[in-house]
């Protein structure tokens, strides 16, 4: 039987291929690096990621191109997502350089696992088929399980890793079962193929099949677990609190970015004809996440845990944008691009803000003092005005107040929801956002209004130049995105080209 090798345009996947080469190079170089010099691996990975960021950027504006027999797609959406993920990775590596030494997990494998996770995310961003999407998701998840439990001598970190692993494996199972049912119903795993079958002659019958409803529920639940939407969020507070702070920051921005991009691709491209069913489910998850995430955050005394709950709420806002993309006219769905571009811009804004907020926690961290409770920030604002100002800007952005990135992002999300007549969603979003201002500003109040107790150790910030540089860049970026968002909004709009 003659085997025909298909024509594969390898250059389209240059970012992924380059990343695998980088991973192998770091693994090999790690063997020849002494225990004291492991930060070199971080620097090496950082420069590799920067180069790959430009490689990914070069794919912008080339239209929709598929290769690898349709398993891989390169369009503006995937380029946007990849560049933001690689930027987040670069920041995370810089945040980690000093922190890894402090928490005593400075191993070369740490950077290798981050890069593996990034590989999975890039594959997800370009996954044009349920199979390639799922494999990317698994690569990302398995690397994240390891990263969460990377402080091996800390029981909290190990517990976090185990919880995340068990829930994550369960979620993968749900998702895979949903994918299998979809394959059984449509005979294909290709996103375009599924859309074609569902839109074809038998499409209405397949779409109305109870098995299809079950498949959609399973897929939504799988995504719900991975993105920690309420009520699938139980693992998140523990996993985010126990994980190394740099990894919490990385997961809360990069993992969410990649998974949301994949969610949009799967639902908008493969399942437009059954949009009424999944949109309702997502609507419910968005409302629950916004409300519960914000209310649960109020009760927290640990700042890290509070930010973990707030990330649930932020995932809810993002999902609001996804839901608000669908507009129903006479039972037929029309996708309006405003929702997707709002989601992308918000994820970008959240990336710079949240990395900054967790970076502030790392700034306070020392060998004998973690400093991730709200109490630990008592009086810091007055004693250290620059650090206080930086944290204040990140909190303004998280709460969605001007002149920050978070404000513009929320403006767009609520604008999209109102324009597409999801009034209830917008109202609930705005109200829960007002609740969030309460707990963010409680920390600001502790920083500026309260004085440090005698028993508390003197504040001593990390002096690592890489960490300080990242924080300055993130503060500037948060303000820049809030004051001059024009170019980035154009980029978010442009990334829909050829998508919906």
């Amino acid at each position, binding site marked *: 039987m003659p085997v025909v090798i298909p024509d594969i345009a390898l250059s389209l996947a240059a970012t992924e291929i380059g990343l*695998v080469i980088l991973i192998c190079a770091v693994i090999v170089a790690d063997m020849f690096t002494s225990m004291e010099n492991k930060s070199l691996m971080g620097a090496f990975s950082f420069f590799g990621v920067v180069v790959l960021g430009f490689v990914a950027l070069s794919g912008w504006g080339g239209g929709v191109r598929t290769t690898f027999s349709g398993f891989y797609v390169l369009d503006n959406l995937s380029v946007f997502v990849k560049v933001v993920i690689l930027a987040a990775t670069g920041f995370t590596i810089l945040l980690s350089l000093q922190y890894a030494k402090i928490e005593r997990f400075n191993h070369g494998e740490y950077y290798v696992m981050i890069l593996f996770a990034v590989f999975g995310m890039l594959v997800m961003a370009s996954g044009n088929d349920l*199979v390639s999407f799922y494999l990317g998701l698994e690569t990302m998840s398995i690397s994240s399980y390891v990263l969460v439990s990377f402080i091996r001598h800390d029981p909290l970190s190990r517990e976090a890793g185990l919880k995340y692993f068990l829930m994550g494996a369960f979620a993968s199972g749900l998702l895979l079962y949903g994918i299998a049912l979809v394959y059984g119903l*449509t005979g294909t795993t290709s996103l375009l193929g599924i859309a074609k079958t569902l839109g074809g002659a038998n499409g209405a019958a397949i779409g109305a099949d109870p098995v299809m409803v079950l498949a959609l529920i399973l897929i939504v639940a799988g995504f719900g677990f991975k993105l920690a939407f309420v009520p699938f969020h139980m693992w998140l507070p523990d996993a985010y609190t126990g994980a190394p702070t740099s990894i919490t920051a990385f997961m809360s921005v990069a993992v969410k970015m990649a998974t949301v991009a994949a969610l949009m691709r799967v639902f908008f491209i493969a399942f437009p004809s059954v949009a009424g069913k999944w949109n309702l489910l997502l609507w419910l998850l968005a409302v629950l996440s916004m409300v519960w995430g914000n209310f649960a955050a109020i009760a927290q005394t640990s700042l890290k845990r509070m930010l973990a709950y707030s990330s649930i709420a932020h995932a809810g806002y993002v999902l609001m944008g996804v839901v608000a993309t669908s507009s129903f006219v006479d039972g037929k769905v029309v996708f309006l691009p405003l929702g997707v571009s709002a989601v992308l811009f918000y994820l970008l804004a959240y990336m710079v803000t949240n990395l900054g907020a967790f970076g502030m926690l790392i700034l306070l961290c020392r060998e004998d003092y973690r400093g991730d409770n709200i109490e630990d920030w008592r009086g810091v604002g007055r004693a250290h005005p620059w650090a206080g100002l930086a944290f204040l800007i990140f909190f303004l952005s998280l709460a969605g107040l001007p002149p920050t990135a978070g404000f513009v992002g929320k403006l767009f999300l609520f604008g999209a929801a109102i324009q597409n007549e999801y009034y209830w969603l917008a109202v609930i979003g705005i109200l829960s956002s007002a609740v969030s201002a309460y707990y963010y500003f409680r920390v600001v109040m502790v920083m500026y209004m309260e004085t440090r107790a005698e028993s508390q150790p003197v504040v001593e910030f990390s002096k690592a130049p890489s960490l300080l540089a990242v924080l300055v860049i993130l503060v500037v970026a948060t303000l820049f995105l809030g004051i001059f968002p024009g170019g980035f909004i154009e980029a978010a709009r442009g990334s829909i080209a050829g998508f919906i």
Partner: protein
Amino acid sequence: MELPFFYLFSVGIIGASILMVTRANVIHAALLLVLTFFFLSGVYVLAGAEFLAVVQILLYAGGIMVLYLFSIMLMSVDVAVRLRQFHRQTIFAMATAVLLALEIWMVLSRGTSYPAFKSFGWGIGATPGNVEALGSVLYTQFLFPFEVASVLLLAAMIGAIVLAKRTIDR
């Protein structure tokens, strides 16, 4: 010629499974499970799925069962045998069995009307054989998932070593 073998394997599967769930000794149960897997792979061969048959033996009988036996041997089996075993899961197990039977009935009653059954036309005795056909699509059409899976396995391997190694601080 196939029919007697089919009955042989089927009776083997059912008999070994019943014996498996009724043994008090876990080691015996695990070994009977291996036997079930072997009979099952025989059924796969009869159905023309040679690849699945080999994978069944390699992965289940080989890999997963070894893992089971390892974890059983970490417990003190001789004590467990003497204890009266109860688990209060009879109703749950019966409900699951009924559900699974319903599912099988649902699929069988629709026959091959599911589109997935039609997309690959490899019947019994088809040429090329099952393994060859799978190999040819795996390295051409499914090249991308294949490569990503290899990276996934490498990540899992390194991750497992990082977490399980006694000490990384050389």
